[in-house]
């Protein structure tokens, strides 16, 4: 981000460093780790001088007025934003403050303030935001970070198929339910599984271990109470030793480069449902459909917000709640988040429709059973889901 700055300052610094650069590496190294030497003050001056030269005072105003940028919309195009900044003048890359004052002003022109207000209220109500002040920033951050959470394609390594994957995910759903984990843990675990299936080499025998360790890692990130390693081995019928489990953990962490961040689609679902003032039953149905999407290998290419939007949209159409003007207005506002990705939503709805249609007579029916309980308002047994053809008709 500050690379442009480096380039500019390089000649400045090189001037002083030329002599040192010719030194033998070992010497260099010993200098670096020794106590501070007498050049210190000089070096301080230097690093302080460089930015001054790069940024003459008079440029401040220009920079501040140049903040409005098309890339800021929803924070989606952060990358392109950086590019233009790097290509353009130096200061912009230094001073573009994405959630500072200017950011907010420019956004207000582009995003309906009503949506902003609704998002803030919803996040606060859901207790997803610590503080209303930060709610909008959080939403932008969620929208931004989720783009890193979808995978480029749905291809699995050749010795795995979608059906083996869905058998494994189905088993994870059962283990997850048995351990009374938070729902976010499940979404994170499946996300880790999707990534590690592609990142690390694993044989089919170790697939179950891989899934279990993904759930274990997700629990370590999200849960207050952690399962013991020996307990997990017991759940896997002692097929693997705890030593193997810990080795797999290390392998996964290295393969994923310790990056366990994830923005679960569930949060988007709750947020959208809250904006759209959806009834409890609609939300449960959408949660059911969203969880079904975990079993579908093709769904990994979509953004979490798209998955959530499609699940909610389909849930509304299946349940056919009586329309009210207020409800329609709220729904319009909620779906404005998806402007531009309607085709993706339709594709997801098709996948979900076929998944929901055959959920009750598939081997992998943990989700179906989970959502047929009275607490979940029997959503998975809803007659509207029985007929795949009719469901597909809804989606067009």
């Amino acid at each position, binding site marked *: *981000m*500050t*690379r442009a700055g*480096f380039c500019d300052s*390089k000649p400045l*610094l090189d001037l002083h*460093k030329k002599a*040192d650069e010719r*030194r033998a*590496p070992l010497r*260099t*190294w010993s200098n*670096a*780790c020794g106590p*501070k030497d007498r*050049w*210190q*003050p000089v*070096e*301080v001056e*230097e*690093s*302080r001088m460089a*930015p001054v030269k790069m940024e003459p005072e008079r440029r*401040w105003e220009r*920079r501040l007025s140049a903040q409005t940028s098309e890339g800021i919309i929803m924070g989606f195009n952060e990358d392109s934003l950086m590019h233009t900044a790097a290509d353009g003048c130096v200061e912009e890359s*230094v*001073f573009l*403050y*994405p*959630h500072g004052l200017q950011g907010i002003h420019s956004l207000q022109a582009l995003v309906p303030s009503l949506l902003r207000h609704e998002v803030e209220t919803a996040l606060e109500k859901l207790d*997803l935001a*610590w*503080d209303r002040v*930060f709610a909008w920033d959080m939403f932008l*951050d969620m929208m931004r*970070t989720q783009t890193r959470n979808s995978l480029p394609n749905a291809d699995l390594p050749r010795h795995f198929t979608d059906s083996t994957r869905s*058998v494994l995910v189905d*088993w994870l759903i059962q*283990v997850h339910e048995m351990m009374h984990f938070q729902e976010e843990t499940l979404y994170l675990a499946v996300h880790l599984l999707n990534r590690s299936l592609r990142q690390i*080499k694993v044989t089919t*025998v*170790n*697939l*179950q271990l891989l899934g279990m360790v993904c759930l274990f890692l997700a629990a*370590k*990130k999200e849960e*207050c109470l*952690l399962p013991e*390693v020996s307990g997990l081995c017991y*759940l896997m*019928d002692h*097929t693997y030793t705890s030593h193997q489990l810990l080795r797999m*953990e*290390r392998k996964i962490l*290295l393969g994923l*480069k*310790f*990056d*366990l961040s994830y923005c679960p689609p569930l949060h988007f679902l709750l947020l959208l449902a809250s904006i759209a003032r959806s009834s409890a039953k609609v939300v449960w149905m959408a949660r059911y459909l969203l969880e079904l999407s975990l079993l579908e290998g093709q769904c990994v290419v979509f953004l979490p917000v798209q998955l959530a939007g499609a699940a909610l949209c389909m849930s509304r159409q299946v349940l056919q709640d009586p329309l009210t003007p207020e409800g329609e207005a709220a729904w319009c506002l909620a779906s404005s988040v998806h402007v531009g990705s309607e085709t993706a939503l339709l594709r997801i709805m098709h996948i979900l429709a076929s998944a929901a249609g055959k959920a009750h007579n598939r081997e992998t029916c943990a989700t179906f059973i989970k959502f047929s309980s009275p607490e979940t308002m029997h959503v998975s047994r809803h007659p509207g889901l029985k007929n795949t053809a009719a469901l597909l008709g809804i989606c067009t």
Partner: protein
Amino acid sequence: MEDLSRWVRKCCCGEDEEENWRREEEDVETEEPSFTRSSSSLAPAESVWFHSLQVSRSPRGRSSSDPQGGRQPHSWKAGLQFGAAHSYVSLEKLGGGSYACVYKGVSRINGQLVALKQIQMKTEEGVPFTAIREVSLLKGLKHANIVVLHDIIHTRDSLTFVFEYMQTDLAQYLSRHPGGLHSHNVRLFMFQLLRALGFIHSQRILHRDLKPHNLLISYLGELKIADFGLARSKSVPSQSFSSEVVTLWYRPPDVLLGATEYSTALDLWGAGCVFVEMLQGAPAFPGVSDVFEQLQKIWTVLGLPSEDSWPGVSQLPNYKPERFLHSQPKPFRSVWKRLDQLPYKTEDLVRGMLKLLPADRISAQDSLQHPYFSTLPPPIMHLRDTVSIFKVPGVRLETEVRDVFNPGQRVKLSLLPAAKFW
């Protein structure tokens, strides 16, 4: 469950188990963890390049710390890679924590000083969850006032995080300059602290363990928040945390009283305590033994809350009015004398941060707009996250009036010997 898991294995594998066993053993043996250099693991180095001591001292210039920018790979010490244990030499132990030891070290790749945080692995737990949370949070946090994670070394039985090396921390700095810091420096430190808090709060993260020991300071005066072991991101709706977080002195009254609903106000109380400590030179509420004494210290200044002043306080588990001495709120300037010598807006900001009721406490973002910071150059408000405030012309640390090593003499901060803190 056992049957089920056997069934899963059969479905997933569909092959003879015995044979696969052997194959897997081979597979594991050949696959040693190799941590190849990736752009993501190097990204932090870029942002610190300008302003951290070790880099500005490194005579090898920019190619060392900015490998993506310098097109040719560095030539000396071929074979050294990020992520490999032998790429770092540890020099001396800096300190130990509950789950880790910290060593000062040097990178053999580019000669930078680093802090090596070695984490003990437990057999029943594997990689400690604190380590997993810290690293997964820090990987997403790129900010000039948050400590930079350079590298991760993961071997068979140990895990080491490589952080940037910082010369000192606020606790050390305070003990070196007793009797309170220069008011200008307090302002700069507070601005950076609140800037970092505003950033992590907007990322749905609470630090939960703010104290001078966790605030690292570079020789330039850059302040960086470290130790995210207790931090966590708010991703679970309406989940309560254990109340055993935050060192007692910096713990807010609502948490001391046993409230489990945390919010960003938790960190703001801690920041307020650090603020007073920097001005006064002594901790704001130095409780000695237990929670009740800690609460009494707070009541002495802020007054014992009642159901009128704090609706719902009597419902909190530790609220036992009979155990507390009755006390009235006092003006802060009479308790902390240094505030008396400073403009009123200083006290106003302290008062905003040290409110009993969490909902009343000022947010980090609002506090940055407080008149207290209006004397700083205006561009400081519009910096990009990864840019240090010391890049703004005219922003620099003042010489402290008191210095234990140089009594009666003003010293240049840049001449401070490298302290043994990271």
